[in-house]
């Protein structure tokens, strides 16, 4: 039978079929390299754990170290962190902010997603080529690792391959998305698509020909323009990582030159993923997933539910305490988010908690870990300001505990006012409570192993993470709670989660290099100084500044960039250097839960995939009160932070 379709509809049909099969073909083509990468990453993850355990065992039993243990850790981290980038993209699980996207009408959404994918594809492709250039630099200069003398280039070549696969996955999704747009054949969609095409072409062209800018612009205007671009792209739903990457690329290119920009992109990305300190993220994630897969986490929560489930928000409060405990083992907040997120969220979901409350309480509770030592943020502050790191560590303890109490109080009040947020359970008998507690020994044992190891000084956080995984595996196998298939699932999930978050850090580092070069933080500070304010107005102004910078920067880069500027101001205003350090660290931690770029929220979103990013940020909003209360208390009663250090 002859179709009644118009010729143009037939053409549309053919174009969309073509795009569909291109997308499907690409997905097919990268599916086996993707699987190979996944296995490689899995082997590297197991190797990472083995290396940590071997190092601890050999050192404590025979006083010897695995030669080159640290550099091997760094090299394995490259494989662990990047191997699943393409798999995560095919599954459409890279971090995006869907705020505006969700509000767009149907005809605008498809082309906007397509435009974002096109930009991401080109950016990631350029990154892959730059990492390849870095491979040849390392190879031709004969650069090896320090202790073992291993050539570094094969690992960097693997990184280039993984990032290239990521680019192909983006291209596959782009083809599929374009196919859908073509099939709909809506004129408005095509116009939006055309605009995106022109804009993307313009951005990429400007990255390589910054002189093509048709009008002269000052350095700070170029900086502001690039930051504006970054915000806009993120809000339009472009991959957060890609938005920061393209901003760094075009930004540094306009400030200095394309060659400088490309070199920065290639070196920075590799530096981040080969940094052995990152190994705590996959390892603690894996430990958490094993504990979940074995059902131990469920038992802990069943028990917590028996004990305090009848109180308003009892499980969220229990999560807060647990999260504080675990995050205080490590120096950063992310590992806490991952391990507690993967344990606590499924349970709170099972007990019908409001997911906004559930996700936000974990995201905020994890920031306690940076106040309680050890804390990378205090180390950075101490380095920059010459303030005693030991005193800073002491100063963070009481604010950390206080914040835990404030969070729990806030959860309880909110749950009491609105019982639907956290359904109250029935009160259990003492017999039931005690009986349920017997199932919690594996987790308590792991906590003891990890916490005890670190505080006794026997192991570093990295090693504690490795031991934690080893301990979780051992207990699970001995109690026959973990089948091999589930074990592999836990490895694959760990790799996926790690890739989705560390790719953001990779480009956040490139982005913060651009911010540094733009000199914008400097200018903002000069603005504050120029206002000629009184003592408490200065602190207020600085705090407001940190709220703004916390919107788009990570905690550590923000510290490195801003403390050298504000510290002298605060000192000349007569503030205590330790006290000021505590305030600043709390403020940059507020930034990790503040939109649009809040890494803790991104991490939670990667775990709770069905909860929209928007909802999590909205869930965090009430917890802002907790930060405000904490800050106000510390400003009014400096002794909260200064009492413990004064005993030293």
């Amino acid at each position, binding site marked *: 039978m002859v179709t009644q379709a118009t010729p143009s509809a037939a053409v549309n049909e053919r174009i969309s079929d073509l795009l569909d099969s291109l997308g499907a073909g690409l997905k097919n083509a990268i599916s086996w390299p993707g699987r190979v990468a996944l296995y490689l990453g899995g082997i590297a993850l197991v190797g990472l754990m083995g290396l940590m355990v071997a190092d601890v065992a050999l050192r404590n039993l025979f006083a010897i170290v695995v030669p080159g243990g640290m550099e091997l850790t760094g090299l394995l981290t490259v494989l662990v962190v990047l191997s699943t980038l393409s798999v995560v993209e095919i599954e459409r699980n890279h971090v995006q902010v869907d705020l505006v996207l969700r509000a767009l009408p149907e005809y605008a959404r498809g082309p906007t997603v397509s435009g974002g994918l096109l930009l991401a594809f080109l950016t990631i492709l350029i990154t892959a080529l730059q990492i390849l250039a870095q491979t040849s630099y390392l190879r031709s200069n004969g650069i090896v690792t*320090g202790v073992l*003398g291993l050539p570094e280039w094969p690992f960097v070549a693997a990184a280039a391959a993984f990032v290239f696969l990521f680019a192909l996955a983006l291209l596959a999704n782009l083809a599929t998305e374009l196919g859908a747009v073509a099939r709909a054949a809506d004129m408005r969609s095509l116009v939006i698509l055309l605009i995106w095409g022109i804009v993307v072409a313009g951005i990429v062209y400007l990255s390589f020909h910054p002189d093509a800018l048709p009008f002269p612009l000052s350095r700070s205007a170029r900086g502001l323009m690039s930051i504006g671009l970054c915000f806009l792209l993120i809000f339009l739903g472009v991959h957060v990582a890609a938005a920061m990457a393209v901003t760094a690329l075009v930004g540094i290119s306009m400030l200095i030159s394309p060659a400088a920009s490309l*070199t920065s992109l290639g070196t920075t990305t590799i530096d981040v993923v080969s940094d052995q300190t990152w190994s705590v993220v996959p390892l603690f994630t894996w430990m958490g997933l094993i504990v979940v897969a074995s059902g131990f986490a469920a038992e802990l929560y069943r028990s917590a539910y028996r004990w305090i489930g009848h109180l308003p928000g009892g499980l969220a409060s229990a999560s807060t305490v647990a999260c504080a405990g675990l995050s205080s083992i490590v120096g950063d907040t992310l590992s806490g988010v991952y391990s507690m997120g993967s344990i606590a969220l499924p349970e709170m979901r099972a007990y019908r908690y409001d997911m906004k409350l559930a996700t936000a309480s974990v995201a905020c509770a994890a920031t306690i870990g940076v106040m309680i030592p050890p804390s990378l943020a205090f180390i950075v502050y101490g380095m920059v300001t010459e303030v005693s790191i030991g005193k800073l*560590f002491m100063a963070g303890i009481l604010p950390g505990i206080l914040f835990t109490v404030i969070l729990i109080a806030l959860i309880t009040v909110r749950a009491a006012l609105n019982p639907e947020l956290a359904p109250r359970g029935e009160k259990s008998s003492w017999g039931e409570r005690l009986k349920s507690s017997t199932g919690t020994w594996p987790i308590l044992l792991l906590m003891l192993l990890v916490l005890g190891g670190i505080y006794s*000084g026997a192991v*570093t956080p990295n090693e504690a993470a490795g031991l934690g995984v080893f301990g979780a595996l051992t207990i699970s196998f001995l109690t026959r709670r973990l089948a091999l298939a589930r074990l592999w699932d836990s490895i694959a999930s760990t790799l996926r989660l790690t890739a989705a978050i560390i790719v953001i850090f990779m480009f956040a580092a490139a982005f913060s290099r651009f911010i540094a070069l733009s000199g914008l933080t400097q200018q903002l500070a000069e603005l504050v100084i120029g206002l000629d304010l009184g003592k408490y107005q200065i602190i207020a102004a600085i705090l407001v500044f940190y709220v703004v910078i916390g919107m788009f920067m990570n905690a550590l880069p923000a510290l490195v960039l801003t403390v050298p500027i504000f510290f002298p101001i605060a000192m000349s205003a007569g503030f205590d250097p330790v006290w000021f350090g505590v305030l600043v660290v709390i403020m940059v931690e507020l930034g990790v839960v503040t939109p649009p770029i809040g890494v803790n929220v991104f991490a939670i979103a990667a775990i709770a995939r069905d909860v929209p990013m928007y909802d999590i940020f909205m869930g965090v909003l009430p917890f802002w009160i907790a930060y405000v209360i904490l800050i106000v208390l510390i400003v009014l009663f400096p002794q909260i932070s200064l009492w413990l250090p004064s005993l030293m």
Partner: protein
Amino acid sequence: SAAADGIELKMQFASPDGTSWNDMDRRFAAQIEAVTGGRAEVQFFPPNSVTPFKDWLQATGAGLLDLGFVWHPILPGKFPQMELFSLPGLSKNQTIASVVYWRLRDEYPEMGNLFSEQDNVVELATFVAMGSHLHTQKPVRTLGDLKGKVFGAQDSAGVKVLEELRASASVMVGSDAYLALQRGAIDGVLSAWGWVNNFKLNEVTTYHTLLNLNPGTYSSVMNKDTYDRLTPEEQKHLADITPLYFFYNTTDSAAAATADIPPENIFTLSAEDQAELATKMRPQWDEWVTKADAMGLPGQEILDEAVRLMTLYDRN
């Protein structure tokens, strides 16, 4: 004309503000601004904000920075000839070792082939840094005290030495070393005094054993395109002032670090221990000769000449 153009020189600090390294950088910058009659203006960036140590050379070549600090040990394999100066026991004094290096460059030009066309930098000056000492929580008076202890070291050469002495060690950056010491994960750190100042290791260590091991080497470099924008006269001035940069570096660090340490907490090895140390380190000297031979350099000859010059200058 070119001479009338202003030049912006981007430079990054190596350590936080307030440390002697940064004062040294500021003095150097002021001198550059002076010799160019104010045409050049130096802009400083905080440590690690534009590039980490590892990529400083690439960052300078690419123009992210105009003046760069290249710490050779952080790029193992890139400067094999410079590993000569990291040989344990070879040099006793930073100034003498640097002068010996410059003499060796006159005699063996290959010793000065540090940067390639691709690196796109102009070498301003190259120096030997200070040697490493042991900074510990419990006293280490003899080599025997090292056995079975765990250390952090500032570079891989230090790890090799400590393993040779039956201690275990791994490379650590300063901030990690602080944490590890505080938690008792390591017994001490093998590093130069500069680290003690800049990473506050004096807060977490009490005793200091003077070993003067494995000094690293470093170069000050300038982006080649930026250098070409200087007039021949400015280029000559730059060459004249750069050794001063080094001079400041030698004097401040050790004095600042040791000022507050009671003398009874600083140990020197006995003559026997020093001899044993030298014997144990000998194989590393031979390894360097083999490596230099493989590069087509007269390895043994250069090493012998280095020893001769060190002794000669040390006597004067």
